[in-house]
C-alpha cells in the first residue's frame, strides 16, 4: 500500500515538472521560485526543529552504556562505548555519525531447525548498505558544489578526480552517483523483501527512497545519456546562489525534473524522518557521558516530592521497633499506631 502510493507520488511529481516546463514553459517557476521556496522551507524548517529540540531539557543523564564503565583504576574502561568525559562523548558521536557504530553491532537471531534453540549471526548488511548510501550521497552532494562555485575550489575538484578513479566513459563515470543509486536500491529491496520490515514500513519510509532513486536516475541520465547544456545550468545555478536569478534558455526538461525532485526532498526534509541526520546529535542515550556518580546533572524542572518521612515511619512502628531493639529517634514519644492507616 505505502509502496504504491509513494511510487505514485514520485511519478506524479516527475509528471508535474515535465508538463510544467515542457507544456507551459514554466522554467522560472521550476528553476527559480520553487528552488528558493524549497531552500527556505528546508533552512527554516530544520533550524526551527533543532531549536525546538535544543530547548527541551534532558532531565536525566541516560546514556546507553555499551561497554565497561570507568570505575576502579585497574579495570580498563571502554572509552568509546561508555564515555566518561566530553572528549570521549565526542569520540562516541564520531563513531556513530561517521562509522555507524551501533548498526555495525547488528546481529540476526536464527531459530534452530528443531525450533528449540536460537543462535546469532553477524548481520552487517544494513550497516554496509547504509554506509554505502550515505557516503555516496555525501560525495555526490559535495561534487555538485562545482555548479554553485566559480572558480571551483580545489577540494571539490579533488573529490571529483577521486570519484572518477575508474576513468571510463565520456563524460567520465562518477562512481558516487552510481553507488548512490545502488545504495538506495539495496535499502529499498531490503525493505520490500524482509517481511517484518515491510510490515513496519509506512508510506513515508518508501517515499524518500523513491524520490532519491528518481533524483539519482535523472542525474545519471543527464550526465551520461541525455546531454544537457552544462554552461547554461551553471549560469542558472550561479544566479540562484548569488541571489541574482537569470532566465536561461535551452536547458532540457530533464534538468527541471531533477531540480524539482531535489526541491521536494529539501522541503520534505524538516517534516520527515530524514531529520534523523541532525537528530542523532540530540539523542540523550548517545550524546551524554556516563558520569552521573561523579558529576551532578541538574534537572531544570525537578520539584520536591513529599516522601514518607522517617518520623512518620517511626511513629507508626514505634512499639514494634522498641520490642525488636531497633534504636529510635524518640523512644519515649507515644505511639500513634498509624501503621494501619492504609488498611
Amino acid at each position: 500500500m505505502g509502496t504504491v502510493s509513494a511510487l505514485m507520488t514520485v511519478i506524479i511529481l516527475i509528471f508535474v515538472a515535465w508538463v510544467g516546463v515542457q507544456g507551459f514553459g514554466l522554467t522560472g517557476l521550476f528553476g527559480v521560485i520553487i528552488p528558493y521556496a524549497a531552500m527556505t522551507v528546508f533552512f527554516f524548517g530544520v533550524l526551527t526543529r533543532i531549536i525546538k529540540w535544543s530547548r527541551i531539557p534532558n532531565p536525566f543523564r541516560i546514556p546507553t552504556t555499551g561497554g565497561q564503565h570507568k570505575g576502579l583504576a585497574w579495570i580498563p574502561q571502554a572509552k568509546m562505548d561508555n564515555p566518561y568525559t566530553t572528549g570521549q562523548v565526542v569520540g562516541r558521536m564520531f563513531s556513530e555519525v561517521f562509522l555507524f557504530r551501533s548498526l555495525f553491532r547488528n546481529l540476526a537471531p536464527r531459530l534452530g531447525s528443531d525450533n528449540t534453540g536460537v543462535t546469532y549471526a553477524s548481520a552487517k548488511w544494513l550497516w554496509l548498505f547504509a554506509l554505502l548510501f550515505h557516503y555516496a550521497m555525501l560525495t555526490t552532494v559535495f561534487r555538485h558544489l562545482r555548479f554553485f562555485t566559480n572558480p571551483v575550489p580545489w577540494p571539490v575538484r579533488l573529490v571529483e578526480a577521486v570519484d572518477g578513479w575508474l576513468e571510463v566513459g565520456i563524460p567520465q563515470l562518477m562512481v558516487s552517483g552510481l553507488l548512490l543509486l545502488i545504495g538506495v536500491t539495496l535499502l529499498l529491496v531490503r525493505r520490500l523483501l524482509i517481511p517484518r520490515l515491510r510490515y513496519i514500513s509506512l508510506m513515508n519510509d518508501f517515499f524518500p527512497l523513491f524520490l532519491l532513486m528518481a533524483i539519482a536516475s535523472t542525474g545519471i541520465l543527464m550526465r551520461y545519456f541525455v546531454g544537457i547544456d552544462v554552461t547554461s545550468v551553471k549560469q542558472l545555478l550561479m544566479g540562484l546562489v548569488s541571489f541574482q536569478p537569470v532566465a536561461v534558455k535551452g536547458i532540457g526538461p530533464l534538468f527541471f525534473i531533477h531540480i524539482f525532485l531535489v526541491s521536494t526532498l529539501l522541503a520534505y526534509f524538516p517534516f520527515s524522518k530524514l531529520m534523523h541526520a541532525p537528530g542523532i546529535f540530540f539523542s540523550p542515550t548517545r550524546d551524554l557521558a556516563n558520569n552521573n556518580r561523579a558529576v551532578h546533572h541538574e534537572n531544570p524542572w525537578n520539584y520536591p516530592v513529599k516522601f514518607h518521612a522517617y518520623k512518620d515511619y517511626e511513629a507508626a512502628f514505634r512499639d514494634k521497633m522498641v520490642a525488636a531493639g531497633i534504636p529510635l529517634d524518640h523512644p519515649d514519644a507515644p505511639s500513634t499506631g498509624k501503621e494501619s492507616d492504609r488498611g
Partner: protein
Amino acid sequence: MADQLPEARELSQIDLSMPSTGWMDTPVRMRKGIYCHGAQGKNIEAVGMPNPRNWRVEDEDWKLPPDWQEIILDGLRERLKRFRSLQVFMDICVRCGACADKCHFFIGSGDPKNMPVLRAELLRSVYRNNFTGAGKIMRKMVGARGLTEAVLKEWWYYFFQCTECRRCSLFCPYGIDTAEITIIARELLNLLGLNIDWIAAPVAKCHHVGNHIGMEPQTMKESIDFLCDDIEEITGIKIEPSFNRKGAEILFVTSSGDYYAEPGIFTCMGYLMLFHQLGLDYTWSTYAAEGGNFGLFTSHEIAKLLNAKIYAEAKRLGVKYILGGECGHMWRVMNQYMDTMNGSPDFLETPISPVTGTRFDHTVATKAVHICEFTADLLKHDKLTLDPSRNDHLRITYHDSCNVARGMGLLDEPRYIINRACNHFYEMPEETIRERTFCCGSGAGLHAGEDMELRMRGGFARANAVRHVRDRHQVNMLACICAIDRAAFPTLMEYWAPEVDVTGVHELVANAMIMDNEKERTLDIRGEDLPEQGIESDQVEKGDDA
C-alpha cells in the same frame, strides 16, 4: 497461571511470520498468561496516584475518567516539553528495523508489536496524529491514528510487555531507547490509574513500610537474624549486624529480595559474612530498606518519591557514604537518576574503602559504591583469603543484568570476583553477554505469577544461552547481580534449562572466603555438603572459554 502454561517444547515453536493485516488494522487480543492483574484501588491511592478504583483487565469497562483522552494528550504534550528523549525519539525513527529482532519478547513470542520499533509506533502514531501537521492532514498514510479506547488498551497490553532492558537501544543507530518510551508511556497510563498490581502493590508497601514486600522493621531484623543463625551453623561465627545505627560509617542498601527469599538470602548471607570478616562499620536501615525501585516502572515522580528515603536516611544516621548491594534496576536508579532526583548529598563524604584505602573517585557526586566494585577492590589488594575449591562443585556462568550492563557498564568487576572465588567459570556466547546481554524476561515489574507465559517467552533467549553452556560445559550454576534475576531465574531455568541453579556473586565469595576463627567448613552457604578437597578441581581446567 502455571497450570495454563504450555510445555516448553510447544512454547518454543515460535512463529515469526507477519500477520496478513497491517498492524493498525490488527486489533489487540489480550491473552491470559501474557498480562498482569490491574492495580487495586488501595495501592493506587497509597501514593496519591490518580483514578484509584478496583478494575479488571478482563472487563470491557476499565472505569476511566470521562475526560481520559484529554488527560493523556495533555500528559503527552507536557512530557514532550520535559523530555528531549521523548520528542527526539518520536521524530527521528527511520524504521530501519535494526531493533526488531533484538527484543527478547519478540524473539520469544513472534508478536510483531513486540518489535521495539512497533512498540514505539503505538505511541508515535498518536503523537503524529495530534502533534504533527502531516499526521493531522494525511492520517493513516503517514502512520497516524487517533487515540481510541482500543489504542489505549493496546498501549497497556504492550507497554507492560517491555522490561525496559535497553537492548534495542544499543543496536539503534540513533540510540532510540524503548525503555525511555515505555517509562513515559507507563507514566501516561498511570494518569488514568492503569498500573499493574504487581508494581502498584510493592510501590505502596515500599512507600509506607519501607520495602516492596511490606516487611515491617521487626520482621526485617528477624529475617536477617535468622540468616545470621544459619551463618553461625555453617561457620561457627556469630554475627550481630546493626540496624538504624547512628554514626556508622556506611549505610548498606540492597533489594528486599535479598533478605526475603531463596536464593537471594544466600547472597545476603554473603554480604553479612563479608562485612563481618572485614569488621566494617556499617548499618542496615529498616526505613530505607529497599534499594529496588518499582517507582521507576510507574513514573519518574514515584521513582523519586521512593528513592528519596535513601539519602534522607543517610543524613539522619550521619553515615559517610552508601554501599549498594547486588540489584539491577536499583543501580540504574543509583547511577543515572538518584543524584539528579534527590542529590546533591553534601552531608556525605567521598567513599573510601576502610580496608584498602581506595578512594572511589568516580562516585564523588552520588557517594554510592556498588558492592562488586567494593569487593573487587578488596580482592585486588588481597584483603580476603579465598579458597576457590570450595566452589568446585559449581560450574558457573554469569548473566549480566540489563540495567547494570546498559545503564551503567559494570561488566568486569563481577567477572573478576567470580574468577577469584571459583575455579570453573564459563561465559555464555558473546552475543548474549556484557552489553549485549538478554533480559531475564521478568524485569520492570513483570515478575508476577499470572503472566507466566510472557515471562517464559521473554526469558527464552537468555535461557537458551544458559542451556548452551549447560550442555557444552556442564554448567550448573547461573550467577547474577540482580534481585529480580534471582527471583525470576529459578522458574525460568526449571522451564528451559533444568539442572541449572541460581546464585548471587557474593554467595560465591562467602563460600570461598576463609573467615577468621571459622570452624572447618563442611557445608556451603545453602547448607549443602561441600565438595571433598581435590576431587573435582583437577578434572577440569580453569577457564572462561565459551
